Each structure stands twice: as structure tokens, then as C-alpha cells.
């Protein structure tokens, strides 16, 4: 392995993974504060105010508390699976970010010579993403479908009735909504003609319009299913506190609990990022084909991306503050009898239109 391929395949990805991991942890920590603050604002309260100015240090205090808390394993629990479950949930939630494009392929690293060794390092261009897989979209679906297992196993291994009920609900809900989620994406796939997330954003640039304007039904379906997949309100039945105490993570405490928590918030960021990438033009500025708005291009792509993701995270919090939880039979009915037919109809209509208007762009 020579130096250039070492830099391309090992060094640069490692640096990016490090930056991404650090940023992500920070964003998740402050997302919890944002959630409490926004919901407090909507309910005419102040939210956390004690730790730091306006509660700004609250996430750090929470983190320290979770680390120091006693880690309790129920005596009748299955120890191995109980330990494994939060890890199985957390790892997929983080490795999904490997394919999400935060910005275009536009980081130029000039060539240089390492002094002393007299080794020439070639000039290279890299992007604001860890890797660009030609099957990136399927990779996201595959990895996030593994994450469900952790939730089910955690509920089962606790050997307690509320976690088991929560886990069963979660399994049924996620399997049901995954189907509609897959169908809602297919419209975008047919228009873009590729599975690579970077190329899907580029296709939106070439089409001159974000896909949300061409696929409004697909986007609404995707976001509904995405909220259901992440077990957030109003689809938070697996952890419905009024009936199931806390659902699958009832028996978890301390650090293990925080792993589930991290995974849930990482999954929220993943769904928001996917919504932005597939439907809202990824890193593209608004109206990417109108030259008069060129000054918007002064804002770098990854900031546009972050801004759009924040909007969707805000939607998540808004939903939680606004809507009551669905009943279980209503949830299943919506998934199979409403969302699925609409999703299939959307696929058929898109297919006909794409064929009629002249193939994939």
C-alpha cells in the first residue's frame, strides 16, 4: 500500500470520522437541551435555567449524571443480551453517517512534500462525506434495519413485562413502517436514476428543482414513516410512559440507558439528514439554478445542509409538543391501510410520468 492510497483510504476517512463523531456527540447533547427549551417555550415555561446561563451547560451536567449513576442489571435479566442490546442499537445509528453527504466534493488539499523524508504527496480533492457508495441509499436502509434488533433484544433481555410489551410494539411498528418508507423513496430513485446519495443531490441540481417540489407526496410519506421509525411522538408507543413506564428501556439505568438515548437522537438526525438529502436538495442553496440568487452561494454547502437538518429536527420537537400519541390499532391502520396504498400509488404515478416525460434524468 503506497502513501497516496493510505491517505485516500485510511488517513482522510479516519480524520473525517473523528470530526464527525465529535460534532455529532455535541449536536446530540445540545439537541436534548433544544428539545426541552422548545417544548418549554411552547408550553409557556422556561425550561432548564439553573446550570449555566439559560441552562446552556445542562447537557454536560446530564451527561456527567448519567455516567456516574449506578448501573443496575435486573437479577433475572439475560446478562449477555442485556449488555449487548444498547450497543447493537447505538452502532448502526452512528455508522449510517458514513454515507450521508454533508457537502459537495469541494475540499482541495494542495500537494506538498514531507520535509526530511522527501516524499511527495499529490494534490487531491475530497468531499464533506466519509464515503460515496454507489448503493448509499440501500446502505442506510440496511444499517438502520439492524438497529431495530437492539431495541427488541433490550426489551426481551430485561425479563420484565413492560419492556417486553414495548419491544413487541417497537418490532411490529418498525417492520410495518419500513415497508412504506422504502416505497416512499422509490419515486426519488426513479427520477434520479442512482442509489448514490451524492449523485441524488447532483441530480437535483441538474433537474433545477429540489425533489420535494416534484415528489411532495413522497416527502410527506417519508417524513411520517421516518418519525415512526425513530419511535418519536406521535408514534412513540414503544415507550409510551402512561401505559408502559418507559417501554423497552424501563430496566436500563445510567450509562446503558444513555446509549439508547444517544441512538434515538442519532436516528432523528439520520432521518432529518435523509429527508434533506433526498427531497430538500442536500447541500444545495435554495433555487440552485437561478443566477440572480448567486449571493446565497456564499454560504458554504454544509451550512445549508445543517440549517435544513435543524428545521426538520425542529419539526420533530414541534410534533412532540403538539400531537397526542396514537392508539396501537390506529398506528397499524395508518401504516398499512393509509400510507402503504398512497405510497404504492405514488410509485406507479411517478413511474408513468418518468417514462412519459422521457426517462430518468
Amino acid at each position, binding site marked *: *500500500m503506497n502513501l497516496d492510497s493510505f491517505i485516500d483510504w485510511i488517513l482522510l476517512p479516519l480524520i473525517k470520522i473523528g470530526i464527525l463523531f465529535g460534532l455529532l456527540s455535541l449536536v446530540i447533547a445540545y439537541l436534548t437541551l433544544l428539545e426541552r427549551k422548545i417544548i418549554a417555550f411552547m408550553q409557556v415555561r422556561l425550561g432548564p435555567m439553573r446550570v449555566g446561563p439559560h441552562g446552556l451547560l445542562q447537557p454536560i451536567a446530564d451527561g456527567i449524571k448519567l455516567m456516574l449513576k449506578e448501573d443496575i442489571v435486573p437479577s433475572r435479566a439475560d446478562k449477555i*443480551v442485556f449488555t449487548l442490546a444498547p450497543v447493537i442499537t447505538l452502532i448502526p445509528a452512528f455508522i449510517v453517517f458514513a454515507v450521508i453527504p454533508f457537502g459537495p466534493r469541494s475540499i482541495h488539499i494542495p500537494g506538498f512534500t514531507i520535509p526530511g523524508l522527501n516524499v511527495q504527496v499529490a494534490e487531491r480533492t475530497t468531499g464533506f462525506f466519509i464515503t460515496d*457508495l*454507489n*448503493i448509499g441509499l*440501500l*446502505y442506510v*436502509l*440496511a*444499517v438502520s*434495519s*439492524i438497529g*431495530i*434488533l437492539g431495541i*427488541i*433484544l433490550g*426489551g*426481551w433481555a430485561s425479563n420484565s413485562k413492560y419492556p*417486553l410489551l414495548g*419491544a*413487541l410494539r417497537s*418490532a*411490529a411498528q*418498525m*417492520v410495518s413502517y*419500513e415497508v412504506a418508507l422504502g416505497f416512499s423513496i422509490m419515486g426519488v430513485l426513479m427520477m434520479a436514476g442512482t*442509489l448514490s446519495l451524492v449523485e441524488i443531490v447532483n441530480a437535483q441540481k441538474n433537474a433545477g428543482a429540489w425533489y420535494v417540489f416534484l415528489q411532495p407526496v413522497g416527502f410527506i410519506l417519508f417524513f411520517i414513516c421516518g418519525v415512526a421509525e425513530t419511535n418519536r411522538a406521535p408514534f412513540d408507543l414503544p415507550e409510551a410512559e402512561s401505559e408502559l413506564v418507559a417501554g423497552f428501556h424501563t430496566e436500563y439505568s445510567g450509562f446503558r440507558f444513555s446509549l439508547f438515548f444517544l441512538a434515538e437522537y442519532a436516528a432523528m438526525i439520520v432521518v432529518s439528514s435523509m429527508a434533506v438529502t433526498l427531497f430538500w436538495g442536500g447541500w444545495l442553496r435554495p433555487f440552485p439554478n437561478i443566477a440572480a440568487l448567486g449571493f446565497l452561494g456564499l454560504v458554504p454547502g454544509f451550512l445549508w445542509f445543517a440549517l435544513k437538518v435543524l428545521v426538520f429536527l425542529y419539526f420533530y420537537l414541534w410534533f412532540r409538543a403538539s400531537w397526542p400519541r396514537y392508539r396501537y390499532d390506529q398506528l397499524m391502520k395508518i401504516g398499512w391501510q393509509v400510507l402503504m396504498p398512497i405510497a404504492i400509488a405514488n410509485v406507479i404515478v411517478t413511474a408513468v410520468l418518468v417514462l412519459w416525460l422521457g426517462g430518468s434524468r
Partner: protein
Amino acid sequence: MIEALFFLFAAMAVGAAINVLVQKHVLYSALSLIVLLVSMSGLFILLNADFLAVINVIVYAGAIMVLFVFVIMLLNLPEDEDGADRMRWLKFLGIPMGLFLLFMILATLWNAGADAGVQAQMPGSPEAIGRSLFTDYLLPFEVTSLLILIALMGAVVFAKKEL
């Protein structure tokens, strides 16, 4: 590099496969099966069949195994105690069939050994797979989809006695 990864995934797959058989508890067997499927996906990626690898994870590890685990949890099966005794006669059937399968695999490997150029030609992209599914393998594809439809209807009939 690729050889090292191959041996890593292969060892994981074989270890998990043995663990599926050895484990007393059904849930542990199911978990080992998931490890086996994921390491098989790793092997697929090394063979440039990315699409197959990802579909393998989505369908088997993500959907079918979730349902397996779901059912195991619902039934709450006890640990395998006397099950082995009742199935004792199966070994008279199982051992010859296993040997036959081993022979088939060895024969295939023996014949395939010389053909080293397979890996580079293997069409692993979604486009190539879709093309061959809808041209060369259209009949098997349609027959399979019919079979799946029948199975689906059968499941509905079983689940709802009166429609």
C-alpha cells in the same frame, strides 16, 4: 488487505454458523445467525457484489431475523432439554445428506479452482442485476414472485379464518 478481510469475515461466518448449532437457547442461535448473515454480506462486498450484500442485510438480517426474534420472544421457548432425544432418528437422514452436500460443494470447488477471472466479471451493480432479472431470468423471476404472492395469500388465510 482483501485476503485479510476475507479470512476475517470467513472466520466470523464459520464461527457464527457453528454457534448457531451449539447454542442451547434459541435466541442465541438466532443472534448467531444474524452475525453469520452480516459476515456473509462482508464476503459479498469483497466479491464486488455490493448490491447483493446490502439486500442480504435488509431482507435477512433486518426483516426476517427481526420476525424470528419476535416469534421466539412471543413463544418464550424453554431451553432445549429433551428436544434432542425426540429427534434422534433424524441423524440417519441428516448425516448422509450432510455428506452428500459436502461432496457437492467439494466437487464444485474442485472444478471452479482454475477459473480465477470470475471475480472481475461478476456484475454486482443494481443495474446489471435488474437487467439480467428482466431479460435472461425473466421466467424464474416471475415464477418466484407468483410463489411469494401465493405464500402471502396463504398467510392471510391462516391468520384470518373467516374473511
